[in-house]
């Protein structure tokens, strides 16, 4: 496989990718789009414009081209170089910049690639990027390693609902003990937030409906029970219903009831804006 790397002068993420490729003896053509590679990149961009992501701050570099595939951003590229598409569940596009990387999670049901993911995390961390990682309670053993090795700078715990509804909401089964262990670990992570999603879920009889304030209370109570503390940065986030369901999104004012319902157990509960 041949590699073409489009980089930019002064780009820290580009340096990390180049360093990884050099460390692993990978041969590649490097074109600096701010210097001699400008015209080559412009031609490449014109040809592949629909496949190149443009964020608020412009095109994210580096971009790796294999002749067939385009990978963009340090996370996606390192994942690809490490294990082609096998880490795709763990690593998505980052929407953070200025020294941070996001799009990293331990949601995967198949954790056979967990060690490879940890290796990528370590590489990113040792090369100076600040890491935002997401978890939803699964794979507490990975979370434990990550926290023990100080591989995360901001942990977002996506709490999908109360334990008894987790399978209905997510489609995967998760033991309450596993969820509690992950919540407990989360509290030891720097800059963590617990985010309770208020989403539309299937109900046994009748139409799908939103998680109720009572069920939100149960989720908040679980966090207190798991951690022994009422004082976590706890946020309530509305999730838009799938477009195929004819359900009206909850208005902003609806979330105050959820906040009130959660506060007896999570006193710092706030609505995520």
């Amino acid at each position, binding site marked *: 496989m041949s590699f073409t790397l489009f980089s930019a002068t002064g780009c820290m993420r580009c340096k990390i990718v180049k360093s990884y490729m050099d460390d692993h003896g990978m041969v590649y053509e490097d074109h600096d789009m701010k210097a001699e590679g400008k015209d080559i990149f412009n031609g490449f961009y014109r040809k592949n414009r629909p496949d190149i992501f443009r964020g608020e701050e412009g095109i994210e570099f580096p971009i790796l081209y294999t002749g067939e595939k385009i990978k963009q951003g340090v996370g996606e590229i390192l994942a690809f170089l490490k294990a082609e598409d096998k880490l795709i569940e763990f690593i998505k596009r980052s929407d953070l910049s200025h020294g941070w990387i996001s799009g990293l999670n331990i949601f995967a049901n198949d954790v056979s690639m967990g060690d490879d993911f940890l290796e990528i995390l370590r590489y990113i961390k040792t090369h100076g990027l600040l890491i935002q990682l997401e978890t939803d309670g699964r794979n507490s053993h990975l979370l434990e390693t990550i926290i023990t090795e100080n591989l995360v700078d901001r942990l977002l715990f996506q709490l999908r609902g109360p334990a008894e509804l987790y399978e209905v909401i997510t489609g995967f089964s998760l033991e309450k003990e596993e969820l509690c262990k992950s919540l407990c670990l989360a509290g030891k992570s720097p800059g963590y937030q617990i985010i309770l999603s208020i989403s539309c879920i299937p109900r046994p009889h009748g139409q799908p409906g939103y998680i109720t304030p009572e069920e939100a209370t149960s989720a908040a109570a679980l966090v207190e029970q798991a951690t022994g503390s009422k004082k976590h940065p706890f946020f309530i986030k509305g999730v838009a219903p799938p477009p195929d369901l004819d359900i009206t999104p909850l208005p902003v004012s609806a979330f105050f009831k959820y906040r009130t319902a959660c506060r007896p157990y999570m*006193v*710092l509960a706030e609505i995520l804006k």
Partner: protein
Amino acid sequence: MTYPSIYPTGTTIYNPNKCFNGYTVFQAKELGALVIDMNGGEAKLWKGLHGFPNKVLKGGYVIGHTGERSTKYGMQDLRDLVQVDWDGNVVWKFNEYEYIEDPGEEAQWMARVHHDFQREGNPVGYYVPGMEAKTDQGNTMILGHKNLVCPHISDKNLLDDTIYEITWDGDILWEWVCSEHFDSFGFREDAKNILSRDPNMRPCGGGMGDWMHINSMSLLGPNKWHDEGDERFHPDNIIADGRETNIIFIISKKTGEVVWKVGPYYDYTPEKNLGWIIGQHHAHMVPRGLPGEGNILVYDNGGWAGYGACHPGSLTGTKNVLRDYSRVLEFDPITLKIVWQLTPQEAGLVHPTDSNRFYSPFISSAQRLPNGNTLISEGSGGRIIEVTADHELVWEYISPYWGKNFKMNMVYRAYRFPYEWIHQVEPPKEIEIKPVDVTCFRMPGASPKGPRSEVTIEGTIPFQTSSALCVISDTDDKK
């Protein structure tokens, strides 16, 4: 502001025939919620009850607070809002807005209420015939605080203003956060610049920027503008004002958007009609049923406020608008024309040389009364007055309560209400107090007015009718 060392307190002027007679409630400094009659008799004291402000409800209830957050960590955060009955029992309470853990203090829920609140049934919190605030049910709108960082304004910790609505049972139903609407207020670049560097930083809690400092919040209630189809004045909409920014604004209850405003600048039309409003308090719409209904009534303090260009009176651009007298303005919210005012001139003072005798650079309030009079708290000096529509001073009261910690007799806000709202006591006697001729008013031991020896100098001419002082005044000969 030019008080002598010795002067009377209590009621000093009272004309029962021209007043809207009733009780007046105010927060006596560091004492409690005090109800006085027209002669200054103290009909009721709810001792220890804080009031920011106190409002009396029909039936002998009062709303206030059980305490204030330590000023080491918060600024003007009252910890709760409580309704107390005549006997001092707390019959309603709300505090669950934010859980606060200050070092060395008991962790507790706090309402973080400040400056204002409104109970359903009455849009403005004072007496309006036929609009009585509910006493055993109903929602309450609360002006609150929240600390946050909003990089769009400044990188400093902000003490932001919020408005929230709660049910009788304490459920929060609605919330509005001021900083989220920063772009609606129309600040010029110089103001944004100084706001980002110094959003009115206060030292408590390690420093926080009280950038807007909203000091009043009320509902519009039913009004003629909305009857005529102007949705900006929907009865549920909320009017508030920001002391630090010189802005009075109305927000849509439905969308949260700022739908009407005056300020922060008054140097172009239409605001030019109003003159520069500075550090104002208690801006509200006169409710339906009262003379002037639909107009905006505001105590325009003067003093120092605003953000903008630097000048010798404001070296950094903070508090860059200055004036050393107050005005009470009533203006039409559509044309922005002043329809009534009490300025030093209407108060009978020579302007501007004596104007600072009507001046409170902070706090203060204005209440329209059913007979067309206006009750005004000229707060910094603890002076509460009632004036008629043609500016006659028919009642004056000076608070005799000075704080031991804060050595002023200031009155944040005062409200007049009818005798029948307190059925627990008999209405008081009303005894006229004619203005004393101060030219003859003497302390014991002081000599009476008049020379013991007098001689007229031949060749002198009469004194000029125009003052022609070192500074120009409104007595100068216009020719």
